[in-house]
């Protein structure tokens, strides 16, 4: 009887709405997430462009927008950060690629709970709409930065954007938490329960490991952010004093008393630091996958890579205090947080050296996805090396409110993670859309983006060391900061060029969807399960059968094997003759 169907035995639905809009298929949901993030990244990029223009031409009259006021600059800053962190860095690598490829890579026909999966996408979209709505309400978008420090974020009278705009901001974050929790639940259950026969934990591709650990981080971290958001909403609307001490705003005594602004910082950063790894771990997984595939070598130290991912995930929960060295914490706590933070350097270095070890002596094929994977390693190292500087309270205190920090986290969390997404897009595009992307356009895109992002974010380190303060809307009034303006100007021009280069990507993406050369089932000669199925994969992923896994994920150039790659489903005896 039809009603005895199970969660993932649903037949391919007919009709446009069920197939592409309210779809239960993890592949469609993955693409929905991907395009949501793609639209968000352009909104976020546009906001950053406005900020860069304002920094060097503070009085410029922009078409449609007019002159940017200082408070508008803060609103741009807030929305740029929030949209990029939540709706791009959290959404695309994990929910986008993870949704599409995690079930296929472990040999499952779908996620464990497809309805929940669909619900989690639509909840994310709702959060995105609520977030964007903050631009259009009275007072505009909030001013409190993506970190939303109280009491600024808790007092509606604190500024023009802190009225309805800030309420929408908190509400959107809370909705996003719910969506992420649903997603994380699905990912974890799927990995634990739906692996194909033979897909042991130590045969899972490193991408799957990354998505799995990222989901665990999300499961533990987003609940805490949700609690922080609930308290903030209560402070803003019900008159409680969780975060707000006795304060006076514009000569008026507020009704609050006895709250602790540091409570927000603790709750926020207990989420905020794992969030950094939520953004970067999937990129690490993609980089590992691609470096091995395009070097035609097994990943160097597979087990070490797995333990490094787990180690980074674990340590990520013990270091949130390093965002709060400025808060006047006890030097002993600062020392402990500093020590834990430095120790993250160990698993990170293990990963970096293993990537280099994978490249060493490989027969490297420099296709566009590989270029972006190498770019990821480069940016990860460049952005990561400034981490141990900032991990030390003595250095962090002078550097904390300068461009040094901006340069650090943009390189490692922003650009490196984005390179992971680009690598993933170029690599999996043939599987997702059945066509190849254009290599020439891809290489141009890589070269300009790679050099361009270094030109934007590297100088920020020097600016920071020279004492240029972050979050300031203009530097033209302060004598010593004016001297640094030429470098800011250079960065703005670099931003123009880099953002322009992203048009090459978009053109390539949409043009290749329609006109690219047809892709074979396994164009990169890779080994993992997604390349064993048709291109694009059928509704149940493997066309009515379930693969049986006989090999590890990175068996390239195995001596004695008939080909230089042994697919995970190849017969176990394939290596014997």
């Amino acid at each position, binding site marked *: *009887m039809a009603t005895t169907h199970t*969660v993932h035995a649903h037949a391919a639905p007919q009709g446009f709405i069920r197939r592409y809009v309210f779809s239960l298929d993890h592949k469609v949901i993955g693409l929905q997430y991907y395009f949501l993030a793609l639209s968000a990244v352009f909104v976020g990029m546009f906001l950053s462009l406005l900020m860069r223009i304002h920094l060097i031409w503070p009085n410029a009259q922009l078409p449609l927008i007019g002159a940017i006021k200082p408070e508008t600059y803060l609103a741009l800053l807030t929305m740029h950060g929030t949209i990029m962190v939540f709706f791009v860095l959290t959404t695309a690598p994990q929910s986008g690629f993870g949704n599409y490829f995690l079930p296929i890579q472990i040999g499952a026909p779908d996620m464990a709970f497809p309805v929940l999966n669909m619900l989690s996408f639509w909840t994310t979209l709702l959060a995105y709409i609520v977030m964007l709505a903050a631009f259009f309400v009275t007072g505009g978008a909030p001013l409190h930065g993506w970190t939303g420090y109280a009491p600024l974020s808790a007092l509606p009278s604190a500024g023009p954007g802190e009225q309805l705009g800030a309420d929408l901001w908190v509400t959107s974050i809370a909705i996003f938490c719910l969506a992420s929790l649903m997603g994380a639940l699905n990912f974890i259950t799927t990995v634990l329960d739906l692996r194909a026969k033979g897909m042991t934990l130590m045969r899972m591709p490193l991408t799957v490991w990354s998505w799995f650990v990222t989901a665990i981080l999300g499961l533990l971290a987003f609940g805490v952010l949700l609690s922080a958001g609930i308290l903030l909403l209560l402070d803003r609307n019900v008159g409680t004093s969780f975060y707000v001490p006795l304060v006076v705003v514009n000569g008026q005594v507020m009704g609050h008393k006895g709250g602790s602004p540091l409570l927000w910082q603790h709750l926020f950063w207990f989420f905020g630091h794992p969030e950094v790894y939520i953004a970067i771990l999937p990129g690490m997984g993609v980089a590992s996958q691609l470096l091995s595939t395009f070097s035609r070598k097994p990943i160097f130290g597979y087990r070490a890579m797995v333990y490094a991912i787990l180690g980074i995930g674990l340590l990520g929960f013990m270091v949130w205090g390093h965002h709060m060295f400025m808060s006047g914490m006890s030097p002993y706590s600062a020392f402990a947080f500093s020590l834990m933070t430095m120790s993250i350097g160990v698993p990170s270095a293990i990963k970096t050296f293993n990537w280099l070890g994978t490249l060493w002596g490989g027969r490297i094929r420099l296709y566009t996805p590989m270029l972006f994977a190498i770019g990821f390693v480069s940016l990860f190292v460049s952005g990561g090396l400034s981490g141990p500087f900032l991990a030390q309270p003595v250095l962090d205190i002078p550097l904390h409110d300068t461009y040094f920090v901006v340069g650090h986290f943009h390189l490692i969390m922003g650009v490196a993670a984005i390179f992971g997404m680009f690598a993933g897009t170029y690599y999996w595009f043939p599987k997702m859309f059945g066509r190849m992307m254009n290599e020439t356009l891809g290489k141009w895109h890589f070269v300009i983006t790679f050099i361009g992002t270094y030109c934007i974010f590297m100088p920020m380190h020097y600016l920071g060391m020279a004492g240029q303060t972050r979050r300031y809307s203009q530097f033209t009034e302060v004598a010593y900061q004016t001297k640094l303006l030429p470098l800011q100007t250079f960065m703005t021009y670099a931003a123009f060029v880099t953002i322009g280069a992203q048009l090459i990507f978009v053109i390539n993406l949409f043009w290749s969807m329609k006109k690219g050369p047809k892709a074979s089932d396994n164009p990169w000669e890779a080994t993992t399960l997604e390349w064993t199925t048709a291109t694009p994969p059928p509704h149940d992923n493997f066309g009515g059968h379930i693969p049986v896994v006989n090999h590890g994920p990175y068996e390239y150039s195995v001596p004695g094997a008939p080909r230089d790659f042994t697919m995970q489903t190849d017969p176990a005896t394939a290596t014997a003759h």
Partner: protein
Amino acid sequence: MGILSPTITRYPGTARGGGPVAPPNGGGGDHRNGGGSPNFGDRLRRARLGLAVGLTPIIMLFVSFTSAYIVRQGLPTLDEKTNQYVRDWLPVSLPWILLGINTALLLVSSVTMELTRRHITREAALAPVKSIPGVSLGDEKSFPWLALTTVLGLLFLFGQWMAWSELEARGFFIATSASSSFVYLLTGMHALHLLGGIVALLYAGATSLLKKPIETRRIVIDIAAWYWHFMALLWIYIFALLNFAR
């Protein structure tokens, strides 16, 4: 209300639940990983795993509330009149008798929920036997445990609402002091989660009304029951926290 209790004896899909017929989508007898239609045990295990994972963020939510509660309790506050740091924690006088009754209601509802769960477990186990033509196990009418649980849950919520009214009558509003804010926060968030549990109970009742297959009903009731037990446990924890860390 008896209509809410699972009394369907018709069992569609006789092959499942121990029958010898292979699942339709192949899978080579390897039910665990066979894809297609996994058997009933696999679905139950997956649902339970999902619930266990899903309870984690709820625990994290209340862990963060607890840490905020404890920290705030010990935090000195600047008194604007004397310009001195003072301790302003004002213990809330809670309506203990009312809360005690509510606790009892919730604990009893946990027991009735467990009876619901055991009943459907037995029914599911006997379903293949009943499907054999000519075999009759008697048309036993079971007590509507599920409906009783729902009523007890609603009574608990009503009791909590009465407790809040009583607090307001004693002059403790949500913004009165940090302590009263936390009392409303903890009890309110628990009530919200419990409301979710009641929705799950109503859904379980609806699966029965809609004559869904017994496997589906059993899974829904099993998950709702474990969630319900968790809610009772969470309430005990909150009750203890408010009692011992006043």
